[in-house]
C-alpha cells in the first residue's frame, strides 16, 4: 500500500504545532497502525530527523497508553478497537491519513502525539477506590455478589483509561471515564460505604481539571475501545445528585 500521512508535530508543551506530510510507499496491510508509525520513525531516523513521539506500550489493546485521533476519530475507524489493534487493511491504498493527538485542554500535548493524561490519575486519587488497607480482609466468599451485578461491575471496570472519551467529546467531558469507575464500585457491596462520598469527590476533582460538561451527545460511547456504555453516566449523575442533596 502507498499512503500519505499528515502528522501533528509539536516540539513541546505550549509550543506551536503543525501538520507534517510524509509519504510511505510500501505499507503492508498486515501492519498495525503503530507498526506503520515504527516504519516511518525508522525512516526519519535514517535521514537524521527526529522520530514522531507517540504513546504506546502493551500493543494488545489493554494498557490504555496508545491514543491518536486518526482521520478525526479517536483510535481510528474501527469500532471497539484501540489504535494498537487497528491494522492498515482498514485503509484504502493511496489514502491520505490525518494523525493527531487527543485534543482537550485537560490533556496538554507533551510532544508530537503524546499528551498528559495525569488528570485521570488525579480524579482516581480523589475517590476511585475502596478504603481498605492490606490485611484483615474477610474471606472472599463471605460477601456473595450476584452474577448479574458482578457482570455489570465488570462491564464498567473494563475501562482502560485511555481518554478517547474525552478526545471525542465536543466538550472534552470526562463523564464516561468517571462514570465507569463510579459504576464499577456502585454495583458491588464493597463499594457501598463510600458510594456517596466517592461520586462527590470524583466529580469535584473532575471539575477542578479542565474538562467540560456532558451534553449527552455520546461520542464517548461511540469511540470507547472497551464499549463502556452511556448508562454509567446516568449512574454517576444519580449518585452525584443523591449525594449532593444529602449534603445540602
Amino acid at each position: 500500500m502507498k499512503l500519505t500521512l499528515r502528522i501533528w508535530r509539536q516540539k513541546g508543551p505550549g509550543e506551536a504545532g503543525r501538520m507534517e506530510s510524509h509519504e510511505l510507499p510500501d505499507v503492508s496491510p498486515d501492519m498495525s497502525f503503530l507498526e506503520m508509525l515504527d516504519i516511518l520513525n525508522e525512516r526519519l531516523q535514517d535521514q537524521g530527523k527526529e522520530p514522531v513521539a507517540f504513546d504506546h506500550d502493551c500493543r494488545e489493546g489493554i494498557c490504555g497508553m496508545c491514543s491518536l485521533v486518526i482521520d478525526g476519530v479517536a483510535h481510528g475507524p474501527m469500532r471497539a478497537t484501540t489504535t494498537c489493534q487497528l491494522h492498515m487493511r482498514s485503509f484504502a491504498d493511496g489514502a491520505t491519513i490525518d494523525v493527531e493527538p487527543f485534543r482537550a485542554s485537560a490533556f496538554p500535548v507533551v510532544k508530537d502525539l503524546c499528551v498528559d493524561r495525569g488528570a485521570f490519575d488525579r480524579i482516581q486519587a480523589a475517590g476511585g477506590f475502596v478504603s481498605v488497607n492490606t490485611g484483615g480482609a474477610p474471606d472472599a466468599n463471605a460477601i456473595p455478589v450476584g452474577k448479574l451485578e458482578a457482570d455489570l461491575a465488570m462491564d464498567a471496570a473494563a475501562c482502560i483509561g485511555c481518554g478517547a472519551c474525552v478526545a471525542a467529546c465536543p466538550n472534552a467531558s470526562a463523564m464516561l471515564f468517571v462514570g465507569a469507575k463510579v459504576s464499577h464500585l456502585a454495583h458491588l457491596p464493597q463499594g457501598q460505604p463510600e458510594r456517596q462520598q466517592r461520586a462527590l469527590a470524583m466529580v469535584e476533582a473532575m471539575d477542578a481539571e479542565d474538562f467540560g460538561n456532558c451534553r449527552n451527545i455520546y461520542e464517548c460511547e461511540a469511540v470507547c475501545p472497551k464499549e463502556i456504555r452511556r448508562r454509567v453516566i446516568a449512574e454517576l449523575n444519580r449518585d452525584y445528585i443523591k449525594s449532593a442533596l444529602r449534603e445540602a
Partner: protein
Amino acid sequence: MKLESGIPDGPIQHKWDKHRFEMKLVNPANKRRFRVLVVGSGLAGGSAAASLAELGYEVLCFCFQDSPRRAHSIAAQGGINAAKNYQNDGDSVQRLFYDTVKGGDFRSREAGVYRLAQVSAAIIDQCVAQGVPFAREYGGQLANRSFGGAQVSRTFYARGQTGQQLLLGCYAALSRQIGLGAVKMFPRTELLDVVIVDGKARGIVTRNLVSGAIESFAGDAVVLATGGYSNVFYLSTNAKGCNVTATWRAHKRGAGFANPCYTQIHPTCIPQSGEHQSKLTLMSESLRNDGRVWVPKAQGDTRNPAAIPDAERDYYLERKYPSFGNLAPRDIASRSAKEACDGGRGIGPGGRGVYLDFRDAIQRLGRPVIGQRYGNLFEMYQRITDEDPYEVPMRIYPAPHYTMGGLWVDYNLMSTVPGLHVIGEANFSDHGANRLGASALMQGLADGYFVLPYTIGHYFATSRPAPVTTDHAEFKRVRSEVEERIRRMLSARGKRTPDSFHRELGRLMWNHCGMARSAASLREVLERVPALREEFWRDVRVVGGQTEMNTALEQAGRVADFLEFAELMARDALVRDESCGGHFREEHQTPDGEARRDDERFCHATVWEHTGEGSAPREHREPLVFENVHLATRSYK
C-alpha cells in the same frame, strides 16, 4: 559475594509464622522516618508501594509509563491461583506448593514456594475487598477455572482480563495513598542506575522522560519491581517498554543475577506476519482444550489447509503424547512446534507456524458452543490476521512470554546488596525453571502485599541506615556516569537506529538461545554479542537531544543494556549443562526428545557476580534442598 538465603529452620509449615514472629518491628511512629523508593508500579511494585504507605513509611514510586495503571501486569489474561479449595476438590496449601515445585522442574526454593502457597488465599480476600470484580456463580460465590499443571480448579479470573482487574485494584489502593500524600508518584520517569553508599542501596538516578532531566533520589531502601527481560528476544509478548535496565544496572552495582537462562516460551501466540512485526500477541492456552494442533506430513506442502486430507496431516502432539495430547505442557508443546518447523513442515509466511484447528470441534459441538467458549479470542485473532478461525485453522507459533530468572533474593526478598529488595518477575524466586499458568499474578501480589511489608521493616530495624542525601559523593559519581553514558550514545552519530540493533540481537538470541540451545549455538552468541555491542557504541544513531522527550534515546539506553545482559544469559545457559523446564539443551534429551535433568550436578541456582567491565562474571551456587517434595521426572506420555 555471599549467598545467605536466610531460610528459617523448622518444619516448612511453620517457617513463615516463626519468621514473622522473630523479625524485628519498627514502631508505628518511627515508620515515617524511613523512605522507600519503589521502582515499578505493576502488581508487585504497586501493591508494595500502597501497602508500605498504609503502614506509615514514606514512599516514592516510579514508573516509565504515563500512569502507574499501564504496567504490563495489566496484560495477563487467564487468572490467579490460590489455595482456597472453594470447589471442595482437594486443594490445599500443600498441593499448590507441590504443583508449583514440580511445575518448576525442581529448580525453585521449597521454603519460598511454600510461603507463596500460604499467602495465596489472603490475596484473593484482599482483592475482593478492594472491589476486584472476579467472575461469580449465580449464587454469588466466586467462580474458578482449571489451568495447566494442576488437577484441581483453583484459578480465579475476571473474564479474559484478570491481570487488568488485579492491577486496577492495586492501582486504586496506590491512588488512595497518593491522594493522602503518603506516596509520591513519578510517572514517565526511568531508572538509569542504583546508588550504593557504604555497601547499602541508598538511592537511584533517573531520567525524567518528559524534560530529560537527570535526577537523584535518596532513600533508606530501594525496591525493584521492574519485571522480566523477555524483550531481549526483541519479539515477545511483553509490552514494548519492558526492559532489563533496572535489574541489569543493579547487577553491575553488586546484586547477584540468578538463572538468567530460565525463560518461558508460550506455545500459542500469533505468528510473525513480516519484518515489520513489533511484538507478538498471545492467544490463551485454553484454546488447546478444543483445537487440534497439526502440520502437513510432507515438507513444503503449501496447499490450502482444507485441501489437505487427514491422512496427510500430522497431529504431532496427539501422536507423541497420547495421554495429554494437545494439552501437553507449555515447554513441550513449544518445542514440538519448533521441531516440526525446523523439519520444513511449518506453515504460513516463512514456514514458522503450525495449525490449531477447530474443524472437528465445530463439527462435534456446533459453531454456537465454540463461539461461546472462544468467541472473543477468535475475534481478536481475526482482527490481527484477517482470517476467520471458524473457517480456516488458526496459525500459531511459540513466543517468549515470561522470565523465571532474575536478581537473586534471600527469604526476605533482599538481593545480595543490603537494602536492595527485588519483587515480582524481577526476582528469581518461586518458579524454578518453568512457571505454571496463573502463578505470575499470585507471586507479584504475594511479594508486594504480604511479604515485603514485613521483611523490609526487619531490615530497617536491624540495619538502621545512617542519614544520607543526594549531595553525597557517591550520588554525584553515579550521576556523572549516567550522564557520560548518555553523552556517548548521543555523540556516536553513526548510521544505525537503536531498533535495528535490538532486532538483530533479538534474532540472534531467539535462534541460538531460545527454545533450544546447544553448546555450539551458545558459544556463537558469546562470540557475536560483544561484536554487536561494540558496533552499537560505534555506529548507533540517536537523533535529538538529552534535555527533551526523546524516545530514540530511551530505546538506545534499553538496547545497550540488553546487549550486555544477553551475554550473561548465554553464559548461564552454557554453564547449565542439563535440560530443565524452559531451558532445553539439545545435548541433554532422552532418545524420544524429552528434557533430561541432571540433579547430581545442577540441583542449584546459579548466581552471577559482576566483576567489572571486560572481565568474566564469577559463578556462585545456591544448593537447592528438597526435603518435602521428592525429586522426580516429569512425564506426559
